[in-house]
């Protein structure tokens, strides 16, 4: 493969990006297209818990919710994956055995990535050996901002190798990259280094996912596809709490990359509270009435 010169910057006009997002946000999604979008969004969620206080019990509850989001509607789509820390992968794996729900694990000294590469690779191998289907790694933002693009590239390639069969999602932590041009550059580096997905954020840094950042990443994926024929997935994570936001993201995907990306093989939401808001909206569409959040389990 021909690698671009990562010292060159792809210019991005922030005002233009914001205008495009505003225009896409003016799409009016009603009736059956709304229900379809809500179900689609539900099927794209990486149901996530990433707290220091996470315990096997907490993870088991999360997995049960993933398997049965709303008992009154057993036919609803299941979420795409459950996302946990490496130490809890085996718990999730056991709880989700026999389902199609993937186990995703953050690795590489999430969220800061401030550990020697050997530790980060061990972290990755451990998560994979415990049964993780997907690995969410973080890039070295310090190195990136320091201009060490080749180092960042090599680290991603090394983690990719450590993943073996597991899918690799590369977290750019866009809230620390500061400019859209950096977001574009980090996306290009990650895709060329072997990412299966590129992901906005850890959820531990503000701002987490935003629509302008996501649009720039989707456009990077589009250019990569034009050049290489390879489809890379996209995962905005953090800060997406409402069904309305989720639908806005789906519009971005639909009008930037088209139908092939509108499934959970190529698009995911990293979120914890989004699931319930989507469920509430689906119930509202079916019954015509909003239910209190008390009717939805908090896992």
């Amino acid at each position, binding site marked *: 493969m021909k690698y671009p010169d990562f010292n060159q910057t*792809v210019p991005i006009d922030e005002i233009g990006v914001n205008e495009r997002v505003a225009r896409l946000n003016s799409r009016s999604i009603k009736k059956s297209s709304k229900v379809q979008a809500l179900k689609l969004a539900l099927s794209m969620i990486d149901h996530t818990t990433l707290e220091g206080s996470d315990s096997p019990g907490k993870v088991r509850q999360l997995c049960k919710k993933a398997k049965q989001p709303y008992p009154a509607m057993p036919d609803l789509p299941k979420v795409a994956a459950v996302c946990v820390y490496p130490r809890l992968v085996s718990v999730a794996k056991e709880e989700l055995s026999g389902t199609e729900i993937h186990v995703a694990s953050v690795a590489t000294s999430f969220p800061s990535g401030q550990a020697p590469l050997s530790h980060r690779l061990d972290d990755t191998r451990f998560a994979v050996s415990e049964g993780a289907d997907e690995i969410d790694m973080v890039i070295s933002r310090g190195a990136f901002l320091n201009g060490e693009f080749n180092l960042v590239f090599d680290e991603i390639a090394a983690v990719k190798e450590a993943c073996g069969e597991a899918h690799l999602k590369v977290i750019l932590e866009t809230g620390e990259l500061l400019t859209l041009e950096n977001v574009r550059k980090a996306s290009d580096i990650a895709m060329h280094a072997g990412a299966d997905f590129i992901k906005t954020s850890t959820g531990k840094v503000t701002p987490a996912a935003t629509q302008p950042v996501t649009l720039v990443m989707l456009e990077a994926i589009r250019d990569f596809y034009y050049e290489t024929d390879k489809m890379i997935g996209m995962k905005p994570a953090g800060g997406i709490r409402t069904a309305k936001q989720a639908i806005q993201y789906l519009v971005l995907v639909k009008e930037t990359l088209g139908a092939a990306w509108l499934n959970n093989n190529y698009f995911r939401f990293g979120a914890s509270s989004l699931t319930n808001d989507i469920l509430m909206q689906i119930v509202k569409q079916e019954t015509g009435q909003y239910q209190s959040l008390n009717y939805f389990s908090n896992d």
Partner: protein
Amino acid sequence: MSNTEAKEAPYKPTSPNSKLDFASIWEYDPAPQDSDFAEINERYDLFIDGKFVKPSKGRYFKSTNPATEEVITEFAEATQKDVDKAVKAARKAFEGEWSRISAKERGKYIFRIARMIQEQAREFSVLESMDGGKPIRESRDVDIPLVAAYFFYYAGWADKLEYAFPGKEPKPYGVCGQIIPWNFPMLMLAWKIAPALATGNTVVLKPAETTSLTALKFAELIKDCGLPDGVVNIVTGAGQTGAEIVNHKDIDKIAFTGSTKVGKLIQSSLAGNDKKYTLELGGKGAMLIFEDAPIDQAVEGIINAIYFNQGHVCCAGSRLLVQEGIADKVIQKLQDRLATLIVGDPLDKNTDVGAINSKEQFETVNKYLELGVEEGADIFQSKCEIPDNGYFIRPTLFTNVSQSNRVVQEEIFGPVLTVQTFRTADEGVEKANNTPYGLANGVWTDKGSKIFKVGSKMRSGVIWANTYNKFDPTSPFGGYKESGVGREGGMHGLAAYIKN
């Protein structure tokens, strides 16, 4: 090596086909804007001297909704006698109450008009879309908010004219005859009436015959706002009515927006008399996109430049000039973007491109599409569904064209973009300037110095950089060469209504 071999073969973009599939598994349901609340009378009379009056010859003409081809109402045809009546009313108002009240009071009336437009914004938007075919997204988010903004802006100037013209005693002309086009009916009305009233003139305005509805709705607003009778008069009709205004002896100033052809007729009939005039005419805007441009945002800007309002924009960016190294990439991205444009019912909130304004214009644009193909251009149209009835045209790209093609030279005034290439900035500028028009151009580059270098060499009234079709009341607007005479908007727009 022979001479012929030494010549570089002309670059020809290869127009790659899209690999992306936008015929999605997830389609948007129709999201129609409610229109039942908008009141449309069965017929409309002329608005003269604060009252609605029947036309002297009793003739009316029908107005159709271009998206459905259904007749929605009838407008009165104003003849010479009616125009004369309107001018007399305007003269009486100018010599009477309108000149006696203080500038501050005048400003208050204009502020009131602006606020009332905001209050009735949704109704004006719906009517604008029904009568003219433009998408509700545009009439709601662009046209009507700008209309209010122009009235607010000029209202503020009414009692501050001596600051706008230091050392002068600014005096109005008197009675202004104003003739406006069908592409932005309410916005052009605002561009004309707001500065005229702020400077103390009175007006006789003629809206275009295919889009008079909102002007008459505006007449109802004028009646309700208590503006003194005769200050604003609105007469409807076609070209003949316009000619009666232009040739009327007691009109002091003519303000016209429309085609260059009619503009030339007006100029020749005004030759040798004392009437002042401003003309805002046609254009064939060029957009230069350089290799160092932010390409995705540039593509979005180009879409807004040419497919905004179905391309019925005098300053539309209808000629794209791409630097050769990125031509294939830009064309591919444009084609993919075209595939996501939703063409259809103007009242649907998701519609991007609405109906062509009239049957006549529909035929004109189609004629140019045929002509382009006959001239040997490659045509690309999005594959979107379009309604069976109504005047709809798919957004179109012509590639493989050159400066000598008629589709490159002539103003099409429809959703049609021609794409040419250039190698150096000088060549790009030369192509951009090689036109009888000079209204608006665009430049896309990441480099600020290049914007100024290239922009200063382009002969046009407006240069947009890294954006297009942005309007603001504070900014003057107008053309070079055959694109017009005079400026509208900003302080320059005030000067056009003040005696020298």
